[in-house]
């Protein structure tokens, strides 16, 4: 037992003597969450648009004002002819052109209908679609207000409740995702490198001929990294809460134990990676290039899984991060307890056992 303890100390020393890695390990999550909290968002704000008003009457003016006075849109340019549309889009500076037909108000008075055309730059389809939706909503609102109530017998309205995130803050979506990604990548990377490095430098053999069992060696390595990752997770949670107001509605100890579970799962994935290669470089490439993009894209971090094609949803199932993200969001933002996330928790456990099992098997075979 004392030998084991000695190994744990050794691992801690390794880590703390490597100042550069340490800076990145702790600094990275902080920088990221600050950046993403303040900078990344899906919400449209101050989008530049151009207006081609062929009518220039009081009504088109009202509509234009309504559009521009919303926080979503800013006027970039007033156009005068159709030809200018292509040119202004090519500058890449605007996302949308709103076109009012000639004699707009007149048409409206005479026939009750007038035409507005919206052209959206859909090179980025997400933004394009959202911009169209917002513009349409504003115009629809205008129509409602424009129609005198005497012409309508009655009128249905909706009352919206936005659960869990009443102010529609983007960070609510991103902070849990960030925690998941950083924990997964850091844990997997660190454990896989640590083991392959020992293999490469030959110190692994020294460890293996010592009376300490391989399992103990591995666990001794895992402990410091678990601690590090845990500190990271807590840091992000604190920053999220106090800087961005991302609440922790659910039970805190429960949340933290799920976090620990995920950390262990990611570490076991790293260990598994280290059993399939003896080169640091390969381990790094697998952990990084292999895990990074799929985790960002398929875990539900930014893109909703429900909207993906079926085969991708299936692939997403084998990413531990996907399940953890569900747990995290539910517990943090909805205050769910185990009854709501038992399935996901069980799955994470399953992953943990699976990776450990495979690693042990590989270890025996290889060495």
């Amino acid at each position, binding site marked *: 037992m004392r030998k084991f303890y000695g190994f744990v100390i050794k691992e801690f020393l390794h880590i703390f003597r490597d100042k550069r890695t340490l800076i990145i390990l702790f600094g990275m999550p902080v920088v990221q969450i600050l950046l993403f909290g*303040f900078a990344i968002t899906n919400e449209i704000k101050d989008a530049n648009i151009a207006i081609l008003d062929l009518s220039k009457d009081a009504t088109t003016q009202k509509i234009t004002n309504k559009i521009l006075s919303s926080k979503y849109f800013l006027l970039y340019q007033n156009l005068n002819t159709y030809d200018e549309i292509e040119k202004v889009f090519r500058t890449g500076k605007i996302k949308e052109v709103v076109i009012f037909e000639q004699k707009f108000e007149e048409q409206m008075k005479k026939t009750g209908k007038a035409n507005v055309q919206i052209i959206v730059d*859909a090179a980025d389809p*997400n933004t394009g679609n959202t911009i169209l939706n917002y513009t349409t909503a504003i115009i629809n609102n205008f129509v409602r207000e424009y129609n005198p109530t005497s012409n*309508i*017998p009655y009128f249905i*309205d909706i009352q919206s409740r936005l659960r869990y995130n009443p102010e529609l803050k983007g960070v609510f979506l991103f902070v849990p995702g960030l925690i998941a990604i950083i924990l997964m990548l850091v844990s997997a990377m660190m454990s896989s490198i640590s083991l392959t490095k020992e293999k490469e430098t030959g110190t692994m053999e020294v460890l293996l001929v010592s009376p300490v069992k391989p399992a103990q060696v591995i666990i001794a390595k895992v402990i410091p990294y678990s601690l590090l990752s845990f500190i990271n997770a807590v840091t992000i949670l604190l920053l999220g809460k106090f800087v961005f107001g991302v609440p922790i509605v659910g039970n805190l100890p429960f949340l933290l134990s799920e976090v620990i579970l995920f950390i262990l799962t990611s570490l076991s994935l790293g260990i598994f990676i280290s059993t399939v290669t003896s080169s640091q470089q390969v381990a790094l490439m697998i952990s990084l*290039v*292999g895990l990074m993009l799929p985790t960002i894209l398929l875990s539900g971090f930014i893109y909703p899984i429900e909207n993906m094609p079926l085969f991708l949803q299936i692939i997403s199932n084998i990413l531990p991060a996907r399940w953890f993200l569900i747990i995290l969001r539910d517990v943090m933002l909805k205050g769910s307890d185990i009854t709501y996330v038992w399935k996901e928790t069980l799955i994470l456990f399953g992953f943990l056992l699976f990776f450990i099992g495979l690693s042990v098997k590989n270890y025996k075979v290889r060495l």
Partner: protein
Amino acid sequence: MIRVIKFLIIKEFKQIFRNKSMLPLIFMMPLLQLLILANAATFEIKNLNIVIIDKDQTSLSRNIAGKFKGSKYFNIVGYTFNQKTAEREIQNRHADLYIEIPNNFERDLIREQTNKILVVVNAIDGAKGSISNFYVQNIINDVNKEIAEKYLIQSNTLVAADFKQIDLNYSFWYNPDLNYKTFMVPGILVLLVTLIGTFLSSMNIVREKEIGTLESINVTPINKIQFIIGKQTPIWIIGMFELVFGLTLAELVYHIPFLGSPVVLFTFGALYLSLALGVGLLISTVTETQQQAMFFTWFFMMLFILLGGLFTAIENMPAWAQTITLFNPIRYFIEVVRLVMLKGAGFADVKNHLIVISIMSVVINGLAVFRYRKTT
């Protein structure tokens, strides 16, 4: 001078191609990811799971419920009279939202001239939540419109022109089908090429430092520029190959429009790669071990990727963040890719991008070469 570089390049290629575990990671994995992951990115919100509480049970309320049923955006997953049940369905993720048509809805509507339907939405994903809200609003607008039109027909005093509507047409340019792949595939390719290029070059020299062969080289009269060029060139070649091959593959599989000239794109790519490699090189001059090099690289890559304008638009960011992205090479490449492929931009249109990347490349590479020392 060149001859020495040639020897180094040959050595590098031999080592790369002999490394059986790395080869699939450098070549197959990125291309696989490109093909598969491109399908992931979509914000098109459909299949919203909705629970309907209809306490009114009148023809009007059933009409409203029917509209949700017929809508391509909504998927009715349950009917209930119990609000608690509906709330639970949201909490356990079976439903994204629910609406409640209250008791005596129709009666009160006619009496008071207005009435409200309750809409409760899971708004954790803010964008999704507000879009959901918007679609509900659309349906209710339709209902209101029907009501008004019916009234119009029955009325004696009103004419069509009294009911004001706006005829709204819309069209999407540059991507009429809202094809997300058109947008994502080139972007993901850029990310992958950047990742591989920067990682390989950051670990390249550090690896030799760690295993000791760097000393053998440093003790020869080779000068550091020859050495750096010799080490980096093969990676650059691999990066260009992946860029070209990846794009071709993407064309074949996804039929992405390519309005502009490949020459423009690949010229930019060549310059961009030299910058990406330069960043890797710079990192390798400030680190001692492969582990450190990798962590540094990862740090910057995560930042660049998430602030690159691929997953979230740069225009949505606050001004200070947008300023930061001016230093992000990925941002420029993504813009160029879009401009060239989707809008047919030529050299003149991307001239600013070219200039910026060139300057950045010269500065970063210069700094790296300056920092690299054969003698410690």
